[in-house]
């Protein structure tokens, strides 16, 4: 029985190591509480405001681990599926995908300088110029 428990614990640890959360960051002055549904809607262009009614400016990543976690944990679509989704909106004049940057440092810099911004990065990249709003 002890062996079985050990194996289960080991398996859970491995799963925990592999399923990393995506860390949502906002400007330090932003007091909004965010759930996953709201965060997803902001990045799919379905919500243009924070829960408190203020404007929201999402900043996306072009690639990397945090981007993969974002696609897996939040959006539930592959990169191609998301691109097809945005194609339908862009080429019908109904929306534009959020602006993207290449590095997490650029996301942090943008969010720290823009009170209405929201972005996502990996947990280890967070610094004190931004506020962690949620982890998904």
């Amino acid at each position, binding site marked *: 029985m002890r062996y079985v428990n050990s194996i289960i614990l080991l398996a859970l640890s491995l799963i925990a190591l592999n399923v990393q959360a995506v860390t949502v960051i906002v400007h330090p002055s932003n007091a909004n509480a965010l759930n996953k549904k709201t965060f997803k809607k902001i990045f799919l262009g379905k919500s243009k405001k924070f829960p408190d009614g203020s404007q929201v400016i999402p900043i996306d990543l072009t690639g990397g681990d945090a981007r993969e976690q974002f696609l897996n944990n939040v959006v539930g679509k592959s990169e191609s599926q998301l*691109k097809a989704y945005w*194609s339908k909106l862009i080429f019908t004049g109904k929306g534009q995908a959020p602006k993207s940057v290449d590095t997490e440092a650029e996301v942090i810099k943008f969010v720290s300088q823009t009170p209405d911004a929201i972005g996502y990065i990996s947990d280890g990249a967070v610094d004190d110029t931004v506020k962690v709003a949620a982890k998904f």
Partner: protein
Amino acid sequence: MKKLQFFTIGLSLLYIPQSFADITLNGFASIRASQANSDGGTTPFGEFEEGEISFKSESLFAVQATADLTEGLSAIIQLYAAGENDFDVEARWAYISYQLADNHTINVGKLANPTFHQSEYEKVGFAHNFSRLPKAVYTGFPFATMEGIALNSQFELADGDYTLDTKVLYGSWDGNITLNGVGNVPLGLNDIMSVNATLSGDWWKVFSGAFTTEMKAESLDANSYFPAIQPGVEAALSLGATQSDITNFTNAVAWDKKDGLYWFAGFGVDYEDWLIDFEYTNYGVQDSVDAPNENWYLALGRRFDSYIITVHAEESKQPDDYGFLNGINHPVLQATGKGLQGVLAANEFDGYGISLRYDFHPSAALKVDYFTGENQITNIGDYQIMSVGVDLVF
């Protein structure tokens, strides 16, 4: 000349100094090798050359520039070049967009006509999983774009669990259309009034829409339909038909100032990597020689990581509808009306297809397909289409 002017406007937009507007460039392209064969020796659809492998029939390129003029105002132009038109560049879209509120945007100018559910993005191959959207529904109407004003709205329902997208549009179109048995003829659509709606959840959507228009078809009636019925009219006169009978008959056949009605309904599912899509469309010119067109497609797909395999069936029919002959009693006129409707409605077809999509790059998909069907026109008969191509967006 008009094309050149639009192209110049497009280039001007691209070179607006940064201080005036933030310009976003997007684009899409399809490069496809296609081959169509038919037992009757005639191409099943106009863009193909029967029996030839062509890199031109289904290839296209488009660049879209969106100039953000701030405070909700933007200008959009889409320059489009299709192989079937020798890659002549045209401004497919050119309109101004203003965001009235977070969930309401108004567009004015040359716009996409949302005739059916996917009409607005039917040229964007990357947005769907077919090599071409089913031809029974997406025939490529010349009035795919029009001039007018549209209101796009989005509503969150049930605490954001569902989304309702709506579009209300008013506009008009003038151009040429190809009709079976008649050829390429001038036509206008006045007072286009269009409404459509899509209700969607996380993995499903249902949609429906309709547009009505007043047909501007004086030239089509005078130069095509009336000459076509003239022999029947003369025979009826010689067999006792009165002038009043003839006037009633020509009025019954005619399209001019009659109402065109187009509507569609369907659903889509994307659940646990299973995909189902269905769309039914119905359209025609009311109280005229035109019988209602009834079309549908049903597709079943399965996603395997970066691959999607789709099988689908489609059908385009135009069953007889002699309601326009109510009140026409002379047998020769009755027969003439039925004969003309038969000629116009001869292009009925069905088919089955299998398509493979492989997303080999985040912005590009390789697609291979095989489609086989039967057209009631004997010069076409059984036909097949095969294609290999790449759809991309940028």
